[in-house]
């Protein structure tokens, strides 16, 4: 017991001086690696903390819209099928009278409709007819056609999980993009316009 403690204390000076030597020659690299790893982890954690997006990717990107046959919200005698997307670029906006964010978003579509650029189709999702019509009366109606999805089944076909959601659909009937949440002028310029330009060029 006492032997070992003596030998240890005898050893320590040697070891320490050698470690100092090593530190002078090789440890700058070690230190750099340690700092790099640390900064890497720190960066990852900061990114992960700020990456609060819970947006799910749509399974429909570059695929044709699902088959459906749905009655129009306003005109009960009209039945819509995927044919309504053929031959023109369309925006399909999922909305409902119970969706608070839809009230925020709606003025944007009212403005957009005045430009008469793309066809705007509404998808009234999991709603009551009278409430949906009241929404349009009070908030305005930017839609050329409105699919009335009373029980949310068409929404499920589109992979909708909240409102508002907006799909960009090409003239070939294929979905190009899905945005979850409110579309603002900023979102439209950044996310939709580049793709619309591409589609117009034939891509």
């Amino acid at each position, binding site marked *: 017991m006492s032997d070992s403690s003596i030998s240890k204390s005898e050893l320590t000076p040697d*070891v320490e001086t050698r470690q100092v030597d090593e530190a002078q020659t090789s440890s700058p690299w070690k230190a750099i690696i340690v700092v790099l790893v640390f900064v890497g982890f720190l960066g990852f954690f900061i990114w992960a903390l700020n990456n609060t997006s819970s947006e*799910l990717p749509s*399974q429909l990107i570059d695929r044709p819209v699902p088959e459906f046959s749905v009655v129009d919200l306003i005109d009960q005698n009209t039945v819509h099928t995927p044919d309504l997307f053929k031959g023109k670029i369309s925006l399909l906006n999922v909305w409902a009278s119970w969706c608070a964010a839809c009230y925020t978003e709606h003025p944007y579509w009212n403005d957009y409709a005045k430009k008469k650029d793309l066809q705007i189709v509404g998808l009234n999702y999991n709603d009551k007819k009278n409430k949906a019509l009241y929404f349009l009366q009070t908030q305005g109606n930017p839609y050329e056609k409105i699919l009335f999805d009373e029980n949310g089944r068409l*929404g*499920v*076909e589109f992979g909708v999980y909240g409102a508002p959601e907006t799909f960009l659909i090409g003239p070939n009937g294929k979905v190009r993009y899905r945005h979850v949440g409110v579309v603002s002028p900023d979102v439209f310029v950044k996310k939709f316009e580049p793709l619309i330009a591409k589609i117009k060029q034939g891509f």
Partner: protein
Amino acid sequence: MKRLLFLLLIAVSFQLEANVSVYEFESIAQEKRFQQLVAILRCPTCQNQNLADSNSIVAEDLKQIVYEKIKAGESDEEILNFMKQRYGEFILYQPEVTPSNAMLWAGPFIFLMISLIGFFVWYFRNKGEVTND
């Protein structure tokens, strides 16, 4: 007054009960399959809940679809595929191992191996140097 309050409370409790959807099955086996499926399917809106625990609009719709499909005689696999086609791999609480996420599954073990190897290399090297002195 007390009696009136009591009756009112009972009336309210019935009302609350009426809000919970009830699914009726032909057999206990069917009901068990339903419970299992809504437990392993994630609610796409409230992403830390499964369908069973969620009352969100889309979760109610999806539960109803699972129910109808079980009654129509579809297999678990068919139902899960239906959900995956529409909502993606995310809808499964325990995602399957695919080439794109294999690194996530294997990553922790690879890191553990690297650090163990690193530790032993460091440990034996130091030990050797100390005893040599």
